[in-house]
């Protein structure tokens, strides 16, 4: 067994040097990690699971990678090896990203971007890597389904000073401020995406299209009291019946508040707050403006 | 102080705070 293990590891190294990632992963998967052999401890098992997952991820094979990361999940909580723990986190985030669980991926990428140490074991953590993780967090958040959960993550990212230095900061700003995104901005953002983030979905929209449509629909809900299906379709750049369908799905999933009047062919948006509460907020705004004016007058010596 | 006057002008137009049928019903 020991010799077979050694041969497998050596062959895997060879395959890796040839960039035949999946073959290297398959070679290592043949190792019996449950064997009672000397030298196979939890740390070894964890390192192999993570290594196999990373190799599969090089070929964007999320399914096989996930199988090994799930095995690693049982071992990582007891692991004191910081390098392995970090590699595990990165793999897990990438798997979530590939599986289009964008919000969860974003949270994990953001977590990675906040690592304070610059040296973990023999590995150096450079600023570029952390910036890459942060950028990935922003990208995944923007691609995630529009709604209250995404808004919370957006707020965290927007308020993080480091994000203002990222190339995709302008689109993050617009998304956070819930502004409608126009085609040129979406196309510029698309250039930064990976293939799986632009893949086609069963309804013939791409992942990016779906994210942008939902975002723009939510933005429209902030600007409009109500809107016709036709106008909404024009605004979103899709046929009216598809606009209605996406709106109804978002309302059903409680990611947007509103109602649909099919007779009048209109969508009525509702605010999260009641009319009287909105009135209260307006009055508060008036009082704040009044205070600001009085402060301004005092500063000028009036 | 033109900027103050502009701010006051904007402030004076903020009331009534809301004008909608639904608000009137709720308010009553």
């Amino acid at each position, binding site marked *: 067994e020991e010799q077979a293990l050694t041969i497998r590891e050596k062959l895997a190294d060879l395959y890796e040097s040839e960039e035949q990632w999946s073959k290297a992963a398959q070679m290592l998967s043949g190792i019996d990690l449950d064997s009672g052999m000397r030298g196979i401890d939890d740390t070894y098992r964890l390192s192999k699971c993570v290594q196999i997952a990373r190799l599969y991820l090089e070929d964007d094979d999320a399914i096989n990678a996930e199988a090994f990361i799930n095995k690693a999940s049982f071992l990582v909580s007891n692991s004191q090896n910081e390098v392995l723990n970090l590699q595990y986190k990165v793999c897990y985030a990438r798997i979530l990203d590939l599986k289009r669980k964008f919000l969860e991926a974003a949270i994990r990428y953001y977590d990675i971007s906040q690592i304070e140490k610059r040296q973990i074991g023999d590995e150096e953590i450079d600023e570029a890597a952390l910036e890459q993780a942060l950028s990935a967090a922003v990208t995944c958040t923007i691609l995630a389904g529009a709604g209250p959960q995404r808004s919370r993550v957006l707020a965290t990212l927007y308020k993080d000073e480091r994000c203002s230095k990222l190339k995709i900061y302008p689109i993050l700003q617009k998304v956070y401020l819930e502004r409608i995104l126009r085609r040129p901005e979406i196309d510029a953002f698309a250039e930064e995406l990976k293939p799986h983030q632009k893949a086609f979905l069963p309804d013939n929209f791409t992942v990016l299209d779906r994210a942008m449509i939902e975002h723009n629909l939510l933005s429209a809900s902030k600007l409009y009291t109500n809107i016709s299906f036709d106008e909404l379709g024009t605004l979103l750049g899709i046929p009216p019946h598809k606009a209605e369908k996406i709106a109804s799905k978002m309302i059903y999933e409680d990611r947007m508040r509103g109602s649909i009047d099919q007779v009048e062919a209109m969508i009525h948006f509702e605010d999260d707050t009641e009319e009287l509460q909105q009135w209260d907020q307006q009055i508060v705004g008036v009082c704040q403006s009044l205070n600001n004016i009085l402060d301004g007058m005092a500063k000028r010596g009036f | 102080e033109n*900027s103050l006057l502009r701010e006051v002008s904007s402030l004076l137009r903020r009331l009534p705070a809301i004008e909608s049928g639904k608000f009137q019903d709720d308010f009553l």
Partner: protein
Amino acid sequence: MDIEQKQADLIEHFVKQASLNKGSSLASIIIEATSNPSLFAFSEILAVPNVAELQGTEHSLYLNLLRLFAHGTWSDYKSSAGSLPPLVADQILKLKQLTVLTLAETSKVLPYDHLMQELDVTNVRELEDFLINECMYAGIVRGKLDQFRRCFQVLFAAGRDLRPGQLSSMIQTMTNWLATSDNLLLTIQEKIKWADAMSEVDKKHKKEVEDRVEEMKKTVVS
């Protein structure tokens, strides 16, 4: 407040520029100011003596232009285009933005038809795109678009430069606010007094009832 803070530096810059220039170079500064996407106030520039001196000169057109941007609307420009220089695209955009602010002065609910007429816009999509991108996202106006009722409800609009005679109506409005606030405070005070009086009556009544119950108990026991 945000608008004023954003344009304070710009106003200072253009006032300084206007003070240092005359004639045709001052005309260029006026064009630059009226084209600037972040500037919506022009009375400070109008107040610069060099600008006032343009009156009666070959560059008086630019003084008229500045006055138009300070107080006028797109309709005002169209009706007196003969006495004004031709506008570039940025100026047309700004004048239309300022028109929306003027319309919001008189009414909180602006019908689409009226807006389309005032802004020379032919369809609802174009109007709404203008209101969204050039007014709401520019921060000069906040509100809600209502396609069913075909109107735009204004919740906030930035202030324009005051027109001559506008000050007195502002003072009148503030006087009315003051009177209403005073009356409201008096009403609240009266209500507090009434509530206190009712509370006293209630306490007294409660005590009477308790005393009677005690008396009844004593009677029953004896």
